[in-house]
């Protein structure tokens, strides 16, 4: 299940062709479980991000964990050489923007093999790999801009929460009172991160969302 992030100008009803329209995520908190509304397409649904007036027409595919061996230790330095497994590449086949960024077709060839092929103690080889496996998107309800955090530096919900508080400028008190931590798992279901062990949480999550109580 993909989360589409799309905004249009609130006063200008134009809907440029070539990308998905805005998408409204419905998070039902009353019974503790969440589900997301579907349906991309040209029709505009409610936009909850009034303070944003810019168009973000891109369809953002969420970063996926390496899902091949869910029971293995997630060693960020151990990524296989086939780069396609955990990358989020915008394709031109109905998703994302056609012809953007404006680079010529022959430049589209991924250069991942360049880094992997160098070997010999190159720090950047692992650095590239690390960034792909542990960064997760975080969004706050009411704020259109998605942020990214490196989950590998956290070992607990406390650690994660304090980083998120700093990132979104939320005080401890405000956090306790008004926010809950929700996440979308690999099956596409939205769940609350309340009663889940940390390990289960990190293994199954695709992205995080801060929702208001």
């Amino acid at each position, binding site marked *: 299940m993909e989360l589409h992030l799309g905004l249009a100008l609130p006063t200008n009803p134009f809907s440029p062709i070539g990308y998905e329209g805005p998408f409204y995520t419905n998070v039902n908190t009353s019974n503790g479980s969440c589900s997301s509304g579907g349906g991309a397409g040209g029709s505009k649904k409610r936009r909850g991000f009034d303070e944003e007036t*810019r*168009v973000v027409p891109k369809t953002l595919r969420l970063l996926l964990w390496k899902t091949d061996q869910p029971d293995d230790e997630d060693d960020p330095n151990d990524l296989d050489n086939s780069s396609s497994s955990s990358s989020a590449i915008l394709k031109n086949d109905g998703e994302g923007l056609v012809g953007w960024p*404006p680079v010529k077709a022959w430049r589209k060839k991924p250069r991942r093999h360049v880094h992997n092929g160098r070997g010999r103690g190159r720090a950047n080889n692992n650095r590239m790999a690390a960034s792909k496996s542990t960064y997760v998107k975080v969004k706050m309800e009411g704020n259109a801009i998605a942020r990214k955090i490196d989950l590998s530096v956290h070992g607990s919900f406390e650690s994660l929460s304090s980083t998120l508080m700093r990132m979104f400028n939320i005080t401890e008190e405000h956090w306790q009172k008004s926010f809950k931590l929700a996440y979308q798992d690999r099956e596409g279901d939205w769940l609350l991160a309340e009663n889940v062990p940390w390990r289960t949480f990190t293994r199954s999550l695709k992205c995080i969302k801060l929702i208001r109580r």
Partner: protein
Amino acid sequence: MESSELKRSKDSVNSCESARRSSFPDEVLERVLSLLKSHRDRSSVSLVCKDWYNAERWSRTHVFIGNCYSVSPEIVARRFPRIRSVTLKGKPRFSDFNLVPENWGADIHAWLVVFAAEYPFLEELRLKRMAISDESLEFLAVSFPNFKALSLLSCDGFSTNGLAAIATHCKNLTELDIQENGIDDIGGSWLSCFPESFTTLEVLNFANLTSDINFDALEKLVGRCKSMRVLKLNRSVSLEQLQRLLVNAPQLAELGTGLFSQELTIREYEELESALSNCKNMHTLSGLWDATGIYLPALYLACTHLTFLNLSYAALQSVELAKLLAHCPQLKRLWVLDTVEDKGLEAVGLNCPLLEELRVFPADPFDDEIVHGVTEAGFVAVSFGCPRLHYVLYFCRQMTNAAVATIVQNCPDFTHFRLCIMNPGQPDYLTNEPMDEAFGAVVRTCTKLQRLSVSGLLTDLTFEYIGRYAKNLETLSVAFAGRSDWGMQCVLGGCPKLRKLEIRDCPFGNAALLSGLEKYESMRSLWMSACNVTMNGCRLLAREMPWLNVEVMKEDGSDDSQADKVYVYRSIAGPRRDAPPSVLTL
């Protein structure tokens, strides 16, 4: 001659003729005008009077056609009887980014047929964004016995078989330049098609091709073409093979290496280094696929007189680039990947004071998980160190208004400013404001600006600035920008020298489109896609302006009334007859 002089001096009706005290014989006039090379000068000359128009058309040997549909080959042949060299451009530029349907047109064949009849002594053909088939290449190869130079840039429709035909038949070939094309690479045997007796090649560029070539044939070819000055290899040529080629061609001025990564012995490395440094004339270096820090030092001695370095196939890190640039003090043009990051660009600023052109390409343009690349800091660093910078193409993921203002203050001579902030509609990341002031600073400060590409979050204010200040602007590219028709109207009402306007995904509609009615006749073309223009608006434009071709390309499943992609251009050839069904001519 004297009687004609008398006759002309009596004739006072034509002010041009009466102003002349002594008239030039046509032959002298033609001789003088034949020295004129610039096609703009020639256009001006042809407008002076009828005699000059005729002298110009008879003395012209090269014709440049910026839009192949603006004129027909018959009209060209009628006006210019003595052409030896033709440059033709076809598809709209956005076809490079897959925005134009596959079978759109711009096929060269009809032109070749006319040229074969009217210009049998044609020597040069340079094509950009044209469709050219193997049959056409073969027809070209056999129809023009004096043919010397073929250059294909961003073309498509042909395979290596077509190249084989050229190699086989063109006995006087001096230039074969195949760049960035959609070519069907069947194999490298085309190189063997050059006959043993063939020695005239000066320019050979096949960097575009992906398949292995017949190295033996290449080595022999390079060995016997002693005048070769440009050689650009493809990726399949190894370092060891490169060394063998270079020992036989130390005269090369432009070199494109093949793969720059291989296990070499120390002896082989030294031989390579020696072969490279023996190329005393080398001023341009490219290729360098997969170049790493290990073998780059082999280039150091060869870089002393380098003026153009193209590293856009080598994903270098900042330290590697810095070390290399320390040996390139004469550099004027540099193309790199953004893997060099801001630190690499700092090294550019420190080492390349003569730099005039910088292009920074994204190594991973479609992956938004990447947190690397270059930022505003790198661009600013270059601007401090390189005051002569006048051409920039910069792909980045963040930018600020303040940074751009600093950059143009340091480098006020920009003629080409192409900034691509890769996330559409992204504001100044520090202030969260639109990037209007950045481009305002560019157009206000850079009075010589000819080409501008804008990006980021932009309101109509950007276009007000452009219309008001960009008096020399000829080409403008806009994407995901603007708020209303007013933006586009400002540009159309302002920039007096505007020739090409290409717009995608902007809220400009019919009012904007129609505000440029007279303007479009002084422009080469207008492209608008994914905007708010409707079919009715386009029909109105077509009706009002009979000298414009108004073409609409519809997308599958779109509203009937929407004009998804609009391409408008002036033409004296009338509406084109070779449009595919997806292109509607109004």
